[in-house]
């Protein structure tokens, strides 16, 4: 079983409600600001993007890297977090 961070576990453990984007695993202060600049101010909006990309983690990772300049570790962490959230709640 891969190790997941506390942030990951916190996010995946419950419905995301109105959590900010910084609640996503892999998204910190800086990346969160960049996402907000791009119009993704809440985690559910990022979820929307993930779903638009048909829950494809690879494409979502690419999108994250391209749009806000996340590195691949951060991006894959975020993608994995969203994927698991979807598995659990969607």
């Amino acid at each position: 079983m891969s190790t997941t961070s506390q942030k990951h576990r916190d996010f995946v453990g419950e419905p995301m409600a109105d959590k900010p984007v910084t609640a996503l695993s892999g998204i910190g202060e800086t990346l969160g600001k960049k996402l907000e600049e791009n119009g993704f101010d809440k985690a559910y909006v990022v979820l929307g993007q993930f779903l638009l990309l048909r829950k494809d983690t690879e494409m979502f990772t690419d999108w994250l890297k391209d749009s806000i300049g996340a590195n691949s570790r951060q991006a894959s962490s975020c993608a994995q977090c969203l994927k698991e959230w979807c598995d659990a709640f969607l």
Partner: protein
Amino acid sequence: MASTQLTDEELFLELKRFGFTPGPVTENTRPVYLKKLKKLREEQQQRGLRPGKTRTIGAINSTTGGGSTVASRPVSHDVTHLNTSRRPGRKSSLLGFSSDESDAETPLKRKGLGHSGRANRSSSSQQQPKIRPASTPSVAIKSRYDHSATPSSNFSLGQNGERRVSLGWGVGDRSRSDAGLRRYDDSGDEDNYEEDMEKKSRSLNGRGASRLNASKLAGDYSDSDEEEVSGLGVGDPECDRLEPRRNHPSVALSSDVTDRGSATDGQNTEATPRRFLNMGGSQGEDEEEDDLKRRDFSRLGDSRSHTLPRKPIYGSLTENHKGYTGKNSPATGEDGASRSNSTELRPRFSTYSGLSQTYRRNHSNHTPAPNHSCGHAALKRNVSAPEDELLQQFKREELASSGSFSAHYLSMFLLTAACLFFVLLGLMYLRMRGSGALEVDNVINSPPPEFDTPNKDVIQKLLLSLHDHLAFVAGQHDCGDPNHPNRSVSIDEASVYLLAQNKSFKGLINESLDWIIQKGQDVGIRLMGAVPDEPVTKVSEIARLESTHPKMSFTCRFRRAFFTIINRVLLIAVVAGCVWSVVCYVKYRWRRDETETRQMYDMVERIIDVMKTHGEACQENQDLQPYLPIPHVRDSLVQPQDRSKMKKIWERAVSFLSANESRIRTETQRIGGADFLVWRWIQPSLNCDKGSSKVWQGKAFPLDRRNSPPNSLTPCLKIRNMFDPVMEVGENWDLAIREAILEKCSDNDGIVHIAVDKTSREGCVYVKCLSAEYSGKAFKALHGSWFDGKLVTVKYLRLDRYHQRFPQAQGCSTPLKASGLATSVTNTTAHLQHHSSASSPGFS
């Protein structure tokens, strides 16, 4: 590329044409899908263009280095222009060499090292004309730095060094700590191209130093090669990232010029192992080189298109990225490298030359080109595995195989030798048996001294010949020779024979016979009188002579021995078989008796329960008769198809009940006009222990994150404390447990295997589900519930351990359902009640 003019619908359709189903194209997803489209297109082109690559490269080779530099110049201008307009792209294309995957960076860094190092080696050792044109680009580039024309080794050094530097620069960027990269990322500011270059050059310097240190150790180099090779083999994501990275440098360096360069690099790296192999031998490897080159080019071509799609990190400049890939970014990379490295590189080249020397020396440790695209790693490894390594492996295999061969032969030889030895021993023993005559001869040869000396020899000879003759006769007889029907020889025949042997025996026959009698020892001749088995005391009584040591031919003896052995072995086998069959039969009978007894007791218990419940029902409901006809009880307890089988058991149960059960009385009643033997339950109702009331009794605690894992880990569960094996009664309580679990998880149709561990003290039940989510649901349903007065706990098990323990579960994939007809006693009684209550209205 006209991708920017694609409308959303067109983009959608284009993507679908490649067999990829995209989601909706919105302003946010557009760039991602464009990138994907480009990647798919490149892949397609790549497949089509691969054969053409070599030709184009060959054409390119003809251009001079200067031309190449010139060519690169305008390109760089374009790139700069582009860069200013698309700064993120610029950043990405430059940093494209160095994606931010820090994990893969270090191996890549080392890969870059290896790459250039290898190139060093190969080019330095090679004077091929083919290399020349390849090195001209670097020469041309070098010329900018006023490098004097040095022997090709220097060129190659320089070329390699520079390439390496540029690679390293790309790599180094990557290998730079994430912090540095993040600085680029997080800044979000579009740096100027120049600024980027400065940063990179700065970092390059620092990196170069570190890399120098690293690369100085040639052993490190080769070790790192191997390390990164294994690292390459490890993970696909790494692979993917490495591939772009690896190829990006090669791609970057592969404009028209850099194509050649990287090709040379690749080819150099390819050639290197070959070179080393042939070091001792010839150096004529043109054809090899050609092959390598072609292979390299194809590889590069593959890798280029292949990697590019995956490459882009900061790819809002995706289209530019793709468009300029062949030219701009590589050229810019090169330019940047060259520009920034102009001053700093020169002092490095000397160290690089030193390094190349060391590399050359350590050629044996060098693992070649697996650095080239990871995607083609396997192919490349197969293709470019150093021949010396291959040879080494081959030798090792040969040694191993020959060693094993000799070991194998040795064992076989020993085995056959032992067998032969024993066979010979047996034969010799047989022969020895036959030659017992020797001792007889000895006995005969020592006649008692009472005979006259002159006659002694004659008598000896007589006796010997007589003995031989008798032995022969006996042997022939024993062997089944029809010529001699009698084993013994009459004395007349003996006399005749002896006289035929030697006239001088005539008078001595009687004397010799007398001597034999007197001797008393067994001289190999038995004297028989008229009546056999009577000791002969006088010569006159002798009627027949027989040999006690028959002389048989060897084959005859062998045959007899063989048959004897066979007979004895067969006899033993037959006896053993008889004994074994007797034992088996006894065991079988014993087991059968035990099962029958157990079934009988079980039946008795069921009857008692039936009667009990009926008795209670009668107490509550006075309309019912307090007795039950025996056949009715039987028919309700035993399924129709089992009735004939269970007949015997039923009979035994009935007799047991009538003999040993005091609470049930057997009597005759008239029911509906017919006489029935009935059972009446006599005992007043006690509060009978509903022994097997296996029911779920609610949850002890709510499941939250503290006492259960947040997400289900494996599809296998171990449920504890469902039962107490000591307390369980009845035959099928484990089925009841299974049913209980299935009922509890009736909403979960993902359970495929349940195993009740009857012997566990903890009352364990093992459950396997279709997937982790099903097991998670089952976990939530079962963990912390009360069952039969016990608190049930659940934990996850590893799938492989589960399969080790229950191999039959590996094949289970159909969900289990709780069956309505449970065989628990309560259910049967319920059935009976239902039956009886249903029948009564039916009657009325």
